[in-house]
């Protein structure tokens, strides 16, 4: 089916991993694949750290009295959990790792358009991460990841500036990654790789990159103004200085709502790839799945005010935001319907990535429909800032994005490392994650509707049963996440050698060796078949 196959070099030849062993060859590399691996390592560290903070929060909430740690420590724990998970794990998660690794290969290029800028993004991410760690080391920060003023700018006695600086610097890392992707996708596609032949993973990243470019600078300047207000009392948001605290919320959510789509769109791209591969079928409604990514990215900029229905925002503005929020639910639903339809008359097999993908569909659907509830202004009156909201966005972020990230890591692990992971352990961990996740977060929907506010260190006794269930689930979830860490590490050294295309999947990345050579292709590819041409593959086989 492909001429590049014939040119596949023997595995003994150089690939991106064994091409140089020095520190410099990694830390000064321009190779997108090596940078992706640097990201994999660094975001895993932050994921573990964020997970530890979450663990502390969950342990504290077993009892209603707030007796494990004092209120200030608890507030710092959930703040650090939020800051680290949002800015240092979720936002870079899929784009900077799997996206970085695959986008040039998927479009048929030797590298991203600007390899040095790609490396710079990683360094910015690391510097931002160190700012965050510094903040944690000097006593932590207790503003909540949302940094609402005037608490953050005037009243808090914690390391607000260091944390905001961390998020600010990491923001530029995100901008530069998005910039690199858009230029690469526009200008560096292989001959024959038309827009209609781009994998949906690439489409999803294109939409994500647009948000990164247009949204991130707004939070960057907002954080700068916040830091100025805190450091020099240059007033922008504090009413004591003549400012409006609601303006901060507007500017914050102008980025941070679209940022939710930065977190979920790449995951949707991963799911599209996995479902088509393990159903052996062309994605149902390719153009609609691709278009819905763009629709989400653009509509996503019109909905930020739904975080402020009870914040003293005008009810009329709220009405507009609510309406568009309902509208943005539609393209997400379109994706779910199309994925489901892709399985129709397919040949479905249940390897680990597919388990994660099916888990994603279920959990993301729940996250989506509860989002529709919260978009309803009257219901938000009751549910805003309760555990219902916490459960909702964890269903989207963890049930959606983390499931997709895990699914994607399993799917492309053989490609990235040249080794197979142990399938039985992986299936076990996928099951644990699914069960543990639901046990952790489903009770929070109920306790939220009962009226328990979020960010509460101590709480009325009648909510305890739900919090205990949640903590129990979190421990299962924790085991589910630890297992892959262990068997992935094991597989690098002891795993079975992976063939170039272990799943008989379509796409340029499966035509190159595992792991790919430094410049990805020995012979630059020319694309002359449709995307996801699984049926053609079989016709070809039949002819042979």
């Amino acid at each position, binding site marked *: 089916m492909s001429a590049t196959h014939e040119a596949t070099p023997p595995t003994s030849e150089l690939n991106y991993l064994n091409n140089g062993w020095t520190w410099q060859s990694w830390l000064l590399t321009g190779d997108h694949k090596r940078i992706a691996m640097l990201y994999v390592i660094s975001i895993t560290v932050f994921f573990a750290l964020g997970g530890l903070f979450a663990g502390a929060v969950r342990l504290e909430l077993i009892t209603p009295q707030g007796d494990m740690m004092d209120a200030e420590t608890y507030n710092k724990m959930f703040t650090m959990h939020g800051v680290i998970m949002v800015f240092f794990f979720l936002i870079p998660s899929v784009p900077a790792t799997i996206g970085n690794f695959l986008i040039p290969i998927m479009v048929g290029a030797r590298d991203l358009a600007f390899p040095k800028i790609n490396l710079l993004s990683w360094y910015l991410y690391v510097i931002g991460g160190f700012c965050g760690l510094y903040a944690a080391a000097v006593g932590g920060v207790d503003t909540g990841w949302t940094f609402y003023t005037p608490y953050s700018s005037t009243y808090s006695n914690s390391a607000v500036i260091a944390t905001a600086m961390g998020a600010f610097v990491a923001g530029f890392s995100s901008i530069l990654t998005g910039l690199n992707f858009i230029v690469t996708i*526009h200008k560096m596609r292989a001959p024959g790789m038309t827009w209609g032949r781009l994998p949906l993973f690439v489409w999803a990243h294109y939409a994500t990159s647009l948000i990164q470019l*247009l949204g991130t600078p*707004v939070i960057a300047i907002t954080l700068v103004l916040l830091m100025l207000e805190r450091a020099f009392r240059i007033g922008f948001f504090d009413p004591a200085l003549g400012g409006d605290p*609601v*303006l901060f919320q*507007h500017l914050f959510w*102008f980025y941070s709502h679209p940022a939710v789509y930065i977190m979920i769109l790449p995951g949707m791209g991963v799911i599209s790839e996995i479902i088509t591969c393990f159903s052996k079928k062309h994605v149902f409604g390719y153009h609609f799945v691709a278009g819905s990514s763009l629709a989400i990215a653009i509509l996503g*900029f*019109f909905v*930020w*005010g739904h975080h402020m229905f009870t914040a*003293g*925002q*005008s*009810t*009329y*503005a709220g009405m*507009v*935001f609510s309406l568009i929020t309902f509208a943005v639910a539609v393209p997400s639903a379109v994706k779910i319907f199309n994925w489901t339809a892709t399985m129709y008359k397919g040949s479905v097999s249940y390897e680990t990535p597919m388990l994660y993908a099916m888990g994603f569909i279920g959990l993301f659907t729940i996250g989506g429909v509860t989002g529709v509830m919260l978009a309803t202004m009257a219901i938000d009156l009751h549910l805003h800032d309760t555990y219902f909201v916490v459960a909702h966005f964890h269903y989207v972020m963890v049930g959606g994005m983390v499931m997709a990230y895990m699914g994607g890591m399993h799917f492309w692990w053989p490609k990235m490392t040249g080794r197979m992971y142990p399938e039985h352990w992986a299936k076990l961990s996928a099951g644990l994650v699914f069960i543990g996740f639901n046990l952790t977060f489903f009770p929070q929907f109920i306790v939220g509707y009962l009226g328990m506010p979020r960010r509460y260190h101590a709480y009325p006794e009648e909510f305890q049963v739900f919090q205990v269930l949640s903590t129990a689930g979190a421990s299962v979830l924790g085991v589910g996440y630890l297992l892959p860490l262990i068997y992935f590490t094991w597989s690098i050294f002891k795993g079975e050698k992976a063939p170039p295309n272990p799943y008989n999947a379509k796409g340029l990345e499966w035509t190159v060796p595992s792991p790919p050579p430094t410049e990805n292709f020995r012979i630059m590819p020319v694309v002359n078949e449709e995307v996801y041409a699984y049926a053609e593959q079989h016709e070809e086989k039949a002819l042979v």
Partner: protein
Amino acid sequence: MEHHVSSTRLYFGIFATLMVCTFLTVFVRMNLGIKSIGIALSIAVVKATLVILYFMHVKYSHVLTKLAVWIAVVFLGILLVMLSMDYASRDWQYHEPGWEKQGVLKN
């Protein structure tokens, strides 16, 4: 590479127009004493457009570049308009029914 090279004359022509615009906007404010947001910002928009079209060569550029400029304008517009929407309509809902009939009180 075949790329458009603008003539020196064109550059100086644009420069002269920009200067005239700057003079005009200052003249209106300082000599005529008119503080007008409309006039000042309209002149600024004209100047910015000239710089974008000619100094930044957008007039002779790829459609993608033109698209990028429009995206910048549109998304800046989204930010400003949707933001103002809240502030403009904030107090509408707090008026008790029938208050407007009470009329203007003369002190």
